[in-house]
């Protein structure tokens, strides 16, 4: 049997970048300045700084003083480090989610495992993109899933995972997701135990 029961990548979630702080290069700023006719009495560096700090204020206005706990999903599906990769993939596929936290017996967060972790270890390409794996599967006889067959969650998970506390302001969470290029972050209480999970989708939902 090939990879048919594996997780179907949730493209909707992966592409949603609602709260991304735009990554502006100096070149972007310089080009934008060129589009304005007339001499702008400001350096590209300063303009960028002003833009980003205005963006942060806008984010704060959108999400107000709301904290991680106000937007997080409380019913979290999770796996343990010893869960087989097959079970983890089935769980994610069945629930239609693209990543789950990895918890120890006391519900402490050990890491996160996501579609991206699977894809990074499948196929030969380095980018770990879904389409690259598809291409490999179609084009060659080798199955993309071979390298990870029989593995455990602990083989693939990203660990340690970034976590946020329940009290973290949503604007900070948005910042973290963007800077680390991740799609979800586990939310923990003061002793480090998992209480929820916050995705990019949760952030868009609350800002609408």
């Amino acid at each position, binding site marked *: 049997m090939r990879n048919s029961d594996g997780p179907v990548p949730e493209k909707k979630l992966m592409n949603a970048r609602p709260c991304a702080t735009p990554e502006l290069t*100096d070149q972007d700023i*310089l080009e934008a300045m060129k589009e304005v*006719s*007339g001499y702008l*009495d400001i350096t590209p*560096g*300063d303009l960028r700084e002003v833009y980003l700090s205005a963006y942060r204020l806008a984010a704060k206005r959108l999400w107000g003083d709301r904290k991680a706990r106000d937007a997080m999903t409380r019913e979290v599906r999770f796996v343990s480090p010893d869960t087989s990769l097959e079970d983890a993939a089935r769980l994610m596929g069945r629930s239609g989610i693209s990543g789950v936290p990895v918890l120890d017996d006391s519900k402490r967060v050990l890491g996160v495992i996501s579609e991206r972790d699977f894809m990074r270890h499948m196929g030969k390409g380095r980018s770990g993109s879904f389409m690259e794996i598809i291409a490999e599967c179609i084009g060659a006889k080798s199955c993309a899933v071979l390298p990870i067959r029989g593995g455990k969650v602990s083989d693939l998970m990203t660990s340690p995972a970034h976590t946020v506390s329940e009290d973290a302001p949503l604007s900070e969470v948005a910042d973290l997701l963007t800077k680390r290029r991740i799609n979800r972050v586990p939310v923990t209480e003061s002793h480090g135990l998992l209480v929820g999970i916050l995705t990019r989708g949760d952030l868009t939902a609350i800002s609408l």
Partner: protein
Amino acid sequence: MEYFSKMRGTTQSPPRVRISEVLWSWVGAFLGISAVASIHYHILDRTGLVMIIGSFGASAVLIYGAVKSPLAQPRNLLGGHVLSAVIGVAAYQLLQSHTWAAASIAVATAIALMHLTKTLHPPGGATALIAVIGGEKIHALGYFYALIPAATGALVMLAVALLVNNVPRARRYPEFWW
């Protein structure tokens, strides 16, 4: 050493403006300085009054060459020249026996006052300095220096800026009045 590494700079120079911007800057400066220079040489010269001072050259850079700059707006142009002129005259009259101190206190205080009144206009520093080092003719004006040439010259240059800077479609002036 963070102190020294700060001296390397962090960003790059803003882009060069279009050629039309260069031409309109030239036209504005030509007309603006023509106006104050004509008044000076054709009307005021025989009266002992002054209409043109060096700092107007610097104002021309801003109000004809960088028309969007906050430093080039009417509030800054007028406020900067007039307030700095008053400071300069006061510094000269109080400290004329120590010209170096009068000069430095005039410029430094002018900058502080322009900051506090949100009228920062770099040529104002020159207007304050000229009040001290500008020679007999300027000293003889006393506080009248703040009215003519500072206020009047700035007003004439402002009028030219309003007329010229709003001709091209891609330009407008001012960004704000007050």
